[in-house]
């Protein structure tokens, strides 16, 4: 019975069906989606670790393979990631005291002066879908607010987004402000956005430049910081 639920969960992650009302890639897959199946698995007392590894992570691995093979498009990847992130929200209260170690918190913001958030939101979905806790600080976020958040909540990672050549300069100001506050060493800084480049990321002293959300996840997974 538990194997059936885990298999169905994995299949629905592959299909990107968050709930039973969603359509997947394959029209013939119907019934409960990832959210309902996660709850059913909990009700059946399946350990959270099994739900994550056997259902959610295993499903996302297949999704990644299909995306790399050109079989899946970005919307497919995002749908699966969003479904997994909803499932993780349901499982989160049950993870304390288990072997499942949190992957860390990824705070993300569009910097002061910039209200563009498509990229930020896509990165949020993918990073959360990869099992990280994501805190979205919003758009047009003042530098001091970002610094205050890092000081208070100590996230392992900070993502900064900017679309414009004018506002990307604020990213450098954030790094400088974190340095001045003595917080720079405790957080890995990721930067990205249409105007941002690898060279610029290095120039301002960021830890990583991400050309898209997938690269953000790849770099996160490669870092050992938890």
């Amino acid at each position, binding site marked *: 019975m538990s194997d059936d639920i885990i298999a169905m969960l994995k299949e629905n992650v592959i299909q990107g069906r*968050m709930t039973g009302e969603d359509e997947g*890639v394959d029209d013939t897959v119907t019934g409960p989606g990832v959210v309902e199946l996660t709850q059913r698995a909990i009700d059946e007392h399946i350990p959270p670790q099994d739900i994550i590894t056997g259902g959610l992570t295993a499903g996302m691995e297949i999704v990644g393979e299909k995306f790399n093979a050109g079989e899946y498009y970005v919307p497919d990847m*995002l*749908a699966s990631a969003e479904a997994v992130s909803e499932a993780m929200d349901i499982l989160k209260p049950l993870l304390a005291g288990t072997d499942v170690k949190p992957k860390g918190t990824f705070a993300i913001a569009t910097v002061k002066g910039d209200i563009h958030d498509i990229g930020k939101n*896509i990165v949020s979905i993918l990073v959360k879908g990869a099992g990280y806790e994501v805190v979205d600080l919003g758009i047009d976020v003042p530098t001091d607010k970002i610094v205050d958040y890092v000081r208070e909540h100590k996230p392992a990672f900070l993502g900064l987004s900017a679309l414009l050549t004018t506002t990307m300069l604020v990213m450098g100001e954030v790094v400088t402000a974190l340095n001045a506050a003595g917080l720079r060493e405790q957080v890995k800084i990721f930067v990205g956005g249409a105007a941002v480049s690898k060279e610029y990321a290095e120039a301002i002293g960021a830890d990583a430049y991400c050309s898209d959300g997938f690269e953000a996840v790849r770099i996160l997974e490669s870092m050992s910081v938890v």
Partner: protein
Amino acid sequence: MPRQGLLIPAPLERLSRKQIDDIHRASLAILSDPGLVCYNDEAASIFAEAGADVSVLMQGPPPYRTVKIPPGVVERGLQSAPAVITLGARNSENALVMDGREPRVYFVTGSEANTWVDAEFPIYVKKSDPVKEIRVAEFKPRRGMLADLCLSARLSEHLETLDGFIRNVNIQDADITEDIKDVNKVYASLDNTTKHVMVGLTKPDQLDTVLAMASIIAGDDEKLQENPILSFITCLVKSPLQFVDETTGSFIDICRRGIPVAVSSSPQAGTTAPIHEAGIIAQINAEVLAGIVLGQLVNPGTPILYGTVPVRTRMDNLADSYGAVETSQYTIDCTQLARYYGIPNYSTSGVCDPAFPGQQSTVERLFSNILVTLSGPQYLHCAYGLLDCNAAFSPLQAVIDDTHFSMIKYFFQGPRLDGDELETMARQIREVLASPHKLFIRYVRRVLRKGLLSSPYPYEGNEDEVFFKAQQRMEELLSRPVNHIERETAERVFRDIPGLLPRLHPSERDGES
């Protein structure tokens, strides 16, 4: 069910109704004075019998008569010209049903290019940075051969947007004489595509032989009439206003047999027609009407396409300039005139001036392809793969053209809008606005999976790799099987029709492939 073509909901028109009426009257006036110079005795007799004013034989060279056609004769001829013409196909699902009153476009390739253009992709190394290598397309022209025509027909079979095949390669093999050219080019075309085939005859006296072959392939004479898998294109009127002897004779023979035929006229504004738009349009209309009327006098009701290929003259060498913007203007005027008469229109677009694929050819062909398609001609020879004013054919270019026509066809899909759709969208917008990320991406998937989104350009890459990727696509298409003429039928054709080359026989053909 026949092919559906592309229905243009609101066709592009350059001429007002009054301008159309004025051109019609001007063309009638031209037909009655000066009329046409006629080098064909039989045509002159047919017109004389119908009431035209035909002069005595005048001194040439060659000797000729003038034929002045009064408006009443023209009107009578137009009355019996059918509005609906069916061009059949070996596969009935590839038949084309054209209604001269409806702007439904069928895309075909055509001309009879002398030159075949191969593509090679050598690697070049940058002198200042030897690590840097690039692959550059090299186009190599050579004489077109029978095997090329077979390959082109096979490729056309698999080009999704291509509705019909007008033989597009002039076969110049050393062993192909004028006497056997027609049977070989028609067989090569019919054997390698199940789409409609249209040809122009090299030797008019081969008509009966070619039709006998088509009859065997279609089943019998009656089946060929019902499903004309083969049609003809003739340029019986040479601009300005001259009935050519041999082609006019051939045209009369085709009309007698009731086989579909396109009357095509191709005046050149500035040399064989006035440079003024009003002049070339009134003249080409008169030339085409003269041909259609002749055909209807020969055999009332015989299917004839109103074929127009007007072109502007280049001022540097007085050659054709199909890339000139005026060429598209003239063409669209003619399409409108054909619709005015309710006769299916054979038209052209996409003809370009450069000899090789490249930016100029892309701009010129796309410019006219989009605009002329918009005007709604029924049978559009849109120069798939053709270059150098249709003197050269590149299969690679044909594959790229197919992609571009799929984009044009996609554009003309009607808007998917109704009350339910708008209600669903309002609900979707409410849901997204209430969600944390405010993104519609999750709703894209359904549309994507149902094939309701246009495809990305298939030849894009990190660098300009369009030609290389199109070549790969071409090779993939050519690797697909073709539904050749059934073996038993082919054997009968080879037994009964003289002049077919052994290398077209199924045994040799299959041995080669």
